[in-house]
Structure formats: structure tokens, C-alpha cells
């Protein structure tokens, strides 16, 4: 057999099979091990809205520097069934490796796509059976994979010991044996090997975290001690993360009866003086709309996390999309001040949720943090997180001393005498701080009114609050020279693929720049306008069907003729190829 060694900057590995067969566990064991070794990983989970059967896969990109995307193509495919081969073969490159379980799939049908793929049938299931338990086929597969990338089976030992620590020595040894068997079978029968990229991180240093975990841990760091939520894919992991970490610090989690209740409980918690949040996805966000308005008019801080998925209605519950942008910005009847933040990576989710809590309390309005399934459920290696970077700021809560200075019963919670529109709030339990928070229009102490004059003053007060908020102080990303022809714009998690497309276009000699919006509302009009003005052509990368970001830019900034959409709404994350082709006029799906 021929020996093929590629010098890759990265290596992409994927395991796939029917759901409920431990595909995720195989992927996790492989990925956690490599992360601990000091590689930089990005792991993407593809799954379906069913429990057993169907097709699921777990893809890991291994690189020598941080990556935020799992890559367009594939070096190693580990297939437990024919469907995995059929659905993923097109990703394999020339010289790549296909390992499949030949126990049940005696004669795998290998598509002919005019590329050279090294096919390695291994009776994975049978080997596991011989060891006494077919469940260990995942370990056999992991063993074969480590042989294919030139690692020793012992690298998995620590992770195995951690996972099966409660199950005892026998189970641990059996699993180690299974890894060895898979490894040996590959070594004895095949000699194609793909090299891993250079390892640049220190062992046991890198964190391995999803966007959802970033949100949960960031909220904890921000002093959030109450999460009210309703289970929904792909946001439920935020609840799991909170359940794992909040209770140690007295933080509380409640599974509400629905998203309406969840959002209102979070409003109640914030009103009571505890930083509180709710996490959901599109369908839940739709149910929260009236509550969003309540937080706005009653000037109660509120943080909502929307992990977007394919809509509308139940839509694509296990697929990714960025189609809630309009709802996050315009949702709820009437008009309220609000902030909408769209972090670009898992670590940014950790930092930006902390900003969200500070902003919600400063401006006493709802702050929506919009992520998506791609970023929320994918895991990536991060060098470190700085838990002290963003300080908790609760300046807009009135002190007991100040309340004592006010004439008894005369506290004006909604004081109109404010330049900024912000009026300090009291917390129940504070003497002389009595007020009523209202969903009705009200006067300064919180008594409902209907007279035109007070209504206009109160409306103006609320709307004034964000007049001096500069969205770019939270962050906006720009990369490029001073002069350029092509400008790529996106928001949130598309940062990763746009960044790689930008690098590729630069290598092709295009004069290109990349702008990623991280606070979409209030919109960073000035900066976006300045950059668009310089460009001859602007491509707005929108993970939705109607070009919601493009429409927003046209409304806020203008330049209608300059903007072209690059759209995607099939449920899968953008590929770099699609963006490059979109720019080069080959059509998005060329």
C-alpha cells in the first residue's frame, strides 16, 4: 500500500452514524484528548430532531492556532453506516482517509467523485463484541483514528480514566483495551497516515467551550444569580451550564412552564434586585414579546439570550440560522429602548453577556444577546478567559442614604428631571423607596396616566436613554487596509467564515476588507457608513433568506445600490467557499 503524508496547517476529522449510537461520545473523547494535548480545536455537531436513528455527525478541526469554524473539507471520515458515507463523502479531499465499520456494512458503496480517497474497512463492531461489549465500538473507532493521525493510544488514557472513574478499574481497562485494538488493527492493515499540525498550546492549558457555556459562565461572572428558562434546542445547554455552576454561588434556576413565564420571572427577579436572565431560541423569543415591552416601559433591567435556529414556527429546530434579527430589533408592540448584541465567538459570548448585564442595569432596559446554534453548540479551544476583565457596575440603584434624604413617600422612580433619561431605581426592601413598576404609561411615582403631556415626556425620557450610547464602545470588528474595493459585512458568528474568506480573497490579490457588527442595535451607523463609503462593492453576508442585515444597513446608513447579499438558509453554517464564490460572482452555491 502507498504511504501518503500531507503537510497540513490543520486536519479535519469527522465521525458519523445513526443517532443514539454514541457518535457524540466518540467525537468528544477524541476532541477533549487533543485539546488537552495543546492543539486548537473547533468541534461542530450535526444532528437531527429525533432520538434514535437518522444521521448525526461530529466534526473536529485541529489546528495550530485558534479557529472558529470547522472547515469546508475533510481529511478523515469515520463512518458507522452507509448514510454517513453518502452524506459526507463530498467533503473528503484527495489523499484523505475513509474508515468505515465493515462488521455490518460488508460492501460499502464508495461514491466515485474523481478523487483519491484511501478506504479502510475495519470490523469495528465485531472487535468490540469480541471484547465483550459492542458499546465499546466508539473506543475501537477512536483507536483507529489515533493510528490514522500518528498518535499513540495512551494519549486517551487520562480522558478514559476521568469518564469511567465511577465505573471502576475493569471498565477503564476494557476501554483502554478497545482503543488499543482499534489502533492495532489500523496499523496492521493500512499505512496511510495524515500528520497533525504543529502543537502550539501548553498541555492541559486550553479551555474547550461552547458558546452556550460561554453565556452561562459569563452570566455567573456578571453576578447573574437567577435563570428562568424553558427547554428548547439549541439553548437548553445554557440551563445545563447554569445548573452545573450557579448553585455553588447561591444562584437559582427554574424551569418555567413556558417562555412567557420564564421571561416574566426574570423581570420579577431583576425588579427584586437580582441580576436575572432567560435563555431561549426563536419560538420562545416570539412568546416573550409582550414581556419585552413590559421591561421596556417599566424600565426594569432584563437580559434575554436568543440562540437562533432555523425558523419560522418550529422550522429547523436542530439547524442554524440568523433569522431573528428583525424580531430582536423590532419585536414587541409599541416602542421601547433596547440593545441587541451579537457576539462572534464562544469567548466573546462570555464577555458580551457580562456587558449585557451592565448595560441592562445602566439603561434600565432589555438587552438581547443573539447567538445561534452554530456558535452556541460548537466547542472550541480557547487559550484563557479573563474573569476579572469586566467589572460589575450597579450604579443606577439608589442608595439607602439618598432615599432617606427624600421626603417620605415622595420617591420619584421615573423622575423626569434627568438629562440622560436614566432615573435611579430602588429595590424592594429599601425604606422610602416605594414605587409601582408599570406596564401602563405612568407619571413619576408610578401611577398610571393618560394625559398627552405626561405621556410625551415619559416616552421622550425613555427614548433619550440610548441617545448617548455608542455601540462601538462594546465592540466592532474591522480588518483591512485604509483603501479597499470590496467590503464584507456580517454580524455574530459568521465572523469565522467571513474572516477565512477575507484571507483567501486577499491571497488572490483582491483589495478586500472585513467588518463584523457586534452590536446591531442601536446600529453603529457612523463606522459602518464610513467604511461602506470607501468601498466600490459591499457584500452583506446574511444567514437568512431576506437579507435582514442588509435591510438594516440600508435603513440606518443607506447606500442601497452598493449592497449585495450573500445569503444562506438551508440550515447549515456558511462555508468559506460560498462566501468567496459570492464575492467573485460565481453565485453563492456555485
Amino acid at each position, binding site marked *: 500500500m502507498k504511504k501518503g503524508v500531507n503537510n497540513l496547517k490543520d486536519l479535519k476529522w469527522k465521525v458519523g452514524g445513526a443517532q443514539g449510537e454514541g457518535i457524540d461520545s466518540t467525537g468528544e473523547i477524541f476532541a477533549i484528548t487533543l*485539546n*488537552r494535548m495543546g492543539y486548537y480545536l473547533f468541534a461542530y455537531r450535526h444532528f437531527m430532531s429525533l432520538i434514535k436513528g437518522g444521521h448525526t455527525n461530529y466534526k473536529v478541526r485541529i489546528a495550530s492556532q485558534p479557529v472558529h469554524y470547522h472547515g469546508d473539507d475533510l481529511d478523515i471520515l469515520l463512518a458507522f453506516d452507509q448514510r454517513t458515507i453518502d452524506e459526507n463523502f463530498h467533503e473528503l479531499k484527495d489523499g484523505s482517509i475513509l474508515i468505515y465499520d465493515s462488521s455490518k456494512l460488508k460492501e460499502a458503496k464508495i461514491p466515485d467523485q474523481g478523487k483519491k480517497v484511501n478506504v479502510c474497512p475495519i470490523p469495528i463492531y465485531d472487535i468490540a463484541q469480541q471484547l465483550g461489549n459492542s458499546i465499546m465500538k466508539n473506543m475501537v473507532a477512536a483507536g483507529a483514528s489515533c493510528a490514522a493521525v500518528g498518535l499513540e493510544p495512551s494519549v486517551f488514557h487520562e480522558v478514559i480514566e476521568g469518564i469511567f472513574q465511577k465505573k471502576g478499574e475493569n471498565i477503564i481497562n476494557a476501554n483502554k483495551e478497545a482503543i488499543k485494538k482499534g489502533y492495532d488493527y489500523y496499523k496492521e492493515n493500512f499505512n496511510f497516515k495524515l500528520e497533525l499540525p504543529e502543537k502550539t498550546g501548553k498541555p492541559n*492549558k*486550553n*479551555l*474547550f467551550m461552547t458558546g452556550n457555556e460561554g453565556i452561562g459562565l459569563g452570566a*455567573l461572572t456578571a*453576578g447573574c*444569580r*437567577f435563570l*428562568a428558562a424553558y427547554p428548547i434546542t439549541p439553548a437548553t445547554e445554557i440551563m445545563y451550564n447554569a*445548573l*452545573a*455552576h*450557579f*448553585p455553588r*454561588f*447561591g*444562584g*437559582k*434556576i*427554574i424551569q*418555567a*412552564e*413556558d417562555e*412567557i*413565564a420564564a421571561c*416574566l*420571572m*426574570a*423581570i*420579577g*427577579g431583576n*425588579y*427584586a*434586585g*437580582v441580576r*436575572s436572565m432567560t435563555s431561549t431560541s426563536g419560538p420562545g423569543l416570539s412568546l416573550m414579546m*409582550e*414581556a419585552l415591552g*413590559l421591561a421596556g416601559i*417599566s424600565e426594569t433591567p432584563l437580559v434575554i439570550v436568543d440562540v437562533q435556529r432555523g425558523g419560522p414556527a418550529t422550522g429547523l429546530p436542530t439547524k442554524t440560522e440568523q433569522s431573528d434579527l428583525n424580531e430582536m430589533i423590532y419585536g414587541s408592540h409599541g416602542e421601547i429602548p433596547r440593545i441587541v448584541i451579537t457576539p462572534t465567538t464562544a469567548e466573546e459570548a462570555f464577555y458580551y453577556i457580562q456587558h449585557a448585564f451592565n448595560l441592562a442595569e445602566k439603561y434600565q432596559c432589555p438587552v438581547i444577546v443573539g447567538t445561534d446554534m452554530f456558535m452556541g453548540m460548537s466547542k472550541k479551544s480557547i487559550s*484563557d478567559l479573563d*474573569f476579572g476583565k469586566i467589572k460589575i457596575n450597579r450604579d443606577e440603584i439608589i442608595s439607602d442614604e439618598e432615599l432617606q434624604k427624600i421626603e417620605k*413617600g415622595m420617591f420619584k422612580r421615573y423622575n423626569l428631571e434627568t438629562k440622560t433619561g436614566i432615573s435611579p431605581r430602588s*429595590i*424592594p*426592601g*429599601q425604606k*422610602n*423607596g*416605594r*414605587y*409601582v*413598576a*408599570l*406596564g401602563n404609561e405612568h407619571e413619576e411615582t*408610578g*401611577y*398610571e396616566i393618560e394625559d398627552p403631556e405626561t405621556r410625551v415626556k415619559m416616552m421622550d425620557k425613555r427614548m433619550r436613554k440610548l441617545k448617548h450610547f455608542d455601540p462601538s464602545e462594546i465592540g466592532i470588528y474591522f480588518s483591512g487596509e485604509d483603501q479597499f474595493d470590496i467590503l464584507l459585512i456580517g454580524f455574530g458568528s459568521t465572523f469565522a467564515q467571513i474572516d477565512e474568506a477575507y484571507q483567501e480573497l486577499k491571497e488572490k490579490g483582491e483589495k478586500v476588507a472585513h467588518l463584523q457588527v457586534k452590536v446591531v442595535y442601536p446600529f453603529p451607523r457612523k463606522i459602518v457608513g464610513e467604511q461602506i463609503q470607501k468601498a466600490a462593492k459591499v457584500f452583506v453576508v446574511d444567514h437568512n433568506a431576506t437579507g435582514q442585515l442588509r435591510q438594516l444597513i440600508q435603513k440606518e446608513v443607506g447606500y442601497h445600490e452598493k449592497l449585495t447579499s450573500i445569503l444562506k438558509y438551508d440550515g447549515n453554517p456558511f462555508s468559506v467557499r460560498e462566501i468567496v464564490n459570492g464575492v467573485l460572482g460565481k453565485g453563492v452555491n456555485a
Partner: protein
Amino acid sequence: MATLKDFRVSEKATWCPGCGHFTVLAALQAASANLGIEPYNMVLVSGIGCSGKISQHFGSYGFHSLHGRTLPVATGVQLNNHDLVVVAAGGDGDGYGIGIGHFMHALRRNIDMTYIVMDNHIYGLTTGQTSPTSHRGFKSKTSPAGSAEEPVRPVQTAIINGASFVAQAFSGDVKQMTRIMEEAIRHKGFSLINAFSPCVTFNKVNTYDWFKENIYNLDEIIDYDPTDKFAALRVLEDHGSVVTGVIYQEERPVYHEAMIGATKDPTVKLDLTLQAEEIEAIKNSLR
């Protein structure tokens, strides 16, 4: 020490003259003062509609929320500061129509709060439509030929689904109502008071006189045992649910002591700093 005066506000209530809600407000003010509660340690969360206005007319902290959404807001308040006395107040349309889902779940959680529902069998502020507790055959603007629906049975629902204190009161008897409110607030757990509070403007059927004629008052029954669930359901069945007094009471663990993350001190009083070793432990969980 707070007095009755501290639970009053300067603005006059905007209810129609003779509205039953005036009695509910007065009874709640008297009960709170009698219990020695400080108004700044109390939160009254209300929905909307005529009943929803009560939070503005009452001297404690208040939250006049959304239609049918009183209970989740009150739950959020109570779980984050269990030192506060939390009272939720709504109407029959608000609480048993749009809000009945939240009602079911607040019951089974046994949240430590008192829920007062001003039940007048009609929608008042929207000018007289059939409500979830309107009787079959009830004529209104939205059921001109008479309602074809059975009324909701909130009190039976509460007993079956886990309320640990269930009572009914009547705006024609302020003394009994005040006493029941005191007991409800003192009770540790979810207390429902369904308060018959006649709408003098739109409901010409279920008037003060109608209630007086039909009420079966448990205070007059010497051997009534409020801990007997089946007796409670039977007495309601026998008297068309028009029964006043404490109907059912039991002791059960309250939610804020049983929930995940439960703390002795209220959440609002916790220190928010993360120690270096705690941060390191969190980081290790990600490796």
C-alpha cells in the same frame, strides 16, 4: 411600626362607586397593618383590568404587570428575595382565563405567596364580557344568547393541584376577608383567596344580594375540618362553589427552600465575588 396609614396612598382609587374591590383593598391594608408588616418589605404584583389597579392604590412596593401574568412576575420576585411578603392580585378574567396556565404551575410549586383573585364573574374594564367564571347561561355582550360554557372551578383546581391554603371571601364581609388575608399571608406556602367582589356596573346577576343569598359560610360550621381534602371538595360541590372561609389547608415544603440553589439568605443579599480558586475550578471543568 407600620400603621394602616402607611398602606394608604394619596391618589383616590378609580373603581366605580360600590365596587367590591374597595373592600379587597381595605381588607388587605388592614391585614398587613395587623400583621405588623413594613410596607417597604412587601410587594404587591397585579395583572391588568380593574383588579390590576390595586397595586397602585396600595402603599407597598408594587408591580402592575401584564394581563394574566401576575404569578410569574411575583414568582420571580419571591424566589429572589424570600424575606419580602409577596402578594399577587388579579381578576377572574386575568387569572383564570389568559393566566390559568401560570396558576396551575404556581400551585404545584407551592411558591410562598398569597394570591388574591377578585372574582366578579365578568370582565369589567373592557365593559362587560363573559368571563371564565361566568355561569352557564350568563348573558353578556359576548354571549347574548347565554354562555354555553361551564365556568372554571378555580378553588377545586387549586385544591387538587397543590395549593397549600385555599379560601374564599366576600366583599360584603370585610371582617371575614381581613381575617382570611391575615391567615393567608401568615401561611407558609401558596395561598389562594378567591374573593367574590361584585361588579356593580356590568354584572346584574351576581350582585351583593345574590352572593348574600347563596353563600355558605364555613365560619358558621363548627366541625368543619380544613385539612380534609375530600370534605373540602364535597362542600364546594354541595353549595355550587359559593362557599366562604378557609376551605383547605396543609403543610408542604415551599419552593424557595426546595429549589436548586436554595439558600438561607435571600438571593438579593448574596455576595457576587468569585474567588480565585473558584474561578480555577470553573476553568478546570472546561479542560
